[in-house]
């Protein structure tokens, strides 16, 4: 993450997005979906968390606000 050169905000997953992705993936695993990583963990949620950290969950988010622009009126704040 560098300076204001990035146009889209937020630049990373928000905590809501993260929770939703991990939650959805944990549900899949709990219902018997193949696990994508080698792990000793037993709980679906823990597995999903690890998968998320390694960036291999095949789920992402569609953002309505990808067109977020910085406000030009900074003097209002």
């Amino acid at each position, binding site marked *: *993450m560098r*300076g*204001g*050169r990035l146009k889209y*905000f*937020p*630049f990373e997953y*928000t*905590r*809501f*997005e993260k*929770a*939703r*992705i991990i*939650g*959805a993936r944990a549900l899949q695993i709990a219902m018997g979906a193949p696990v994508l990583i080698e792990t000793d963990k037993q709980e679906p949620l823990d597995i999903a968390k690890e998968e998320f950290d*390694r*960036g*291999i*969950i*095949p*789920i*992402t*988010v*569609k*953002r*309505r*606000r990808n067109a*977020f622009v*910085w406000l030009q009126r*900074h*003097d209002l*704040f």
Partner: protein
Amino acid sequence: MNMSEDKVRYEELFKDYNFPEKIKGEIIRELERINADERLAKKVIERCYNVYLKNLMEPGEATGIVAAQSIGEPGTQMTMRTFHYAGVAEINVTLGLPRLIEILDVRKNPSTPMMTIRLTEEYAKSREKAREVANRIEATHIIDVAEIITDLRNMRIIVSPDEKALERKDLKLQDLKKKIEKAVKMDVVEEDGKLIIQIEEPSYKTLMDVFEKVKKLVVAGIKEIKRVIIRKEGDEYVLYTEGSNLKKVMRVKGVDFTRTVTNNIYEIYEVLGIEAARNAIINEAMSTLEEQGLEVDVRHIMLVADAMTADGELKQIGRHGVAGEKQSILARAAFEMTVNNLLDAAVRGEVDMLNGITENIIVGQPIKLGTGDVELVAKFFTGGEK
């Protein structure tokens, strides 16, 4: 080293960073204080920017709820000290919860309107000059400068001015005469320093009516301004007034209207416009809370002020404003006057599109907030481990 050159240099470093003006100014001031070189300045700005980004709200966050709680919780502590009055000099000002309610309700006539008038350089330095401006502003009733007697036998009213009082208020007998003539629409005769109003038709009622009119007559100053107090603040004299009329005060000679404020927000809205009103709401609400020793982050207040002013007109928080103008029927019904709202909506044949939060809670659907606002899509190819 040239100071102004430094400032420009720092300013340039901010080009790539979207800081709010206020934070930018703070950083620049601090950089100037430690006299940072370019490399250090760049580092500081980068670090500040990262912290700033971390402090931003994430999309999906329930900002309104957070603001409501952040103002509401300290508000409960305010209730214990309702109707507490404290004075700026000798002027009473409504404070605490009643004042906060007044601000959020956008009362057109606040219970204690007050102005803080700063003067132009020429007038701010000496007490006499400040007094001069104060005289021009403060409403002077005729009773303040003269004695009024009704002469029943000759059916006339005699106004005998007090020379000293006239001088203090910088008034002439002629001014007084003109004012009275204009107000009562009758001829006024001057007789050895006294003004005599002769009632033509012999009616006791007319006499008393004219007498009442003369008694209430404002001969100088602005009608709404009941009292002016001059106080020294730093090296300049500042006027505090009881009563407020921004439009007229701004026109008075000697008043620095760029630094003159009133606590009547609606008046600011009418005279200076919506952005000024927004700032007035923020300032008034913050000072009210601060006075009570409650610390509320400005951003919560700013959100409230934004909600009140977003449409370009001042709206109160409540039935006749923000809450009452919601497009969703259910959201309106959930706030106040449930039956009326539902009935009116039914008569008009309104449709609720269930776009908002309140409606969806009522019908029992997931709401578009936080995790509920995230739309998942399958990502068929993942690059695998980074």
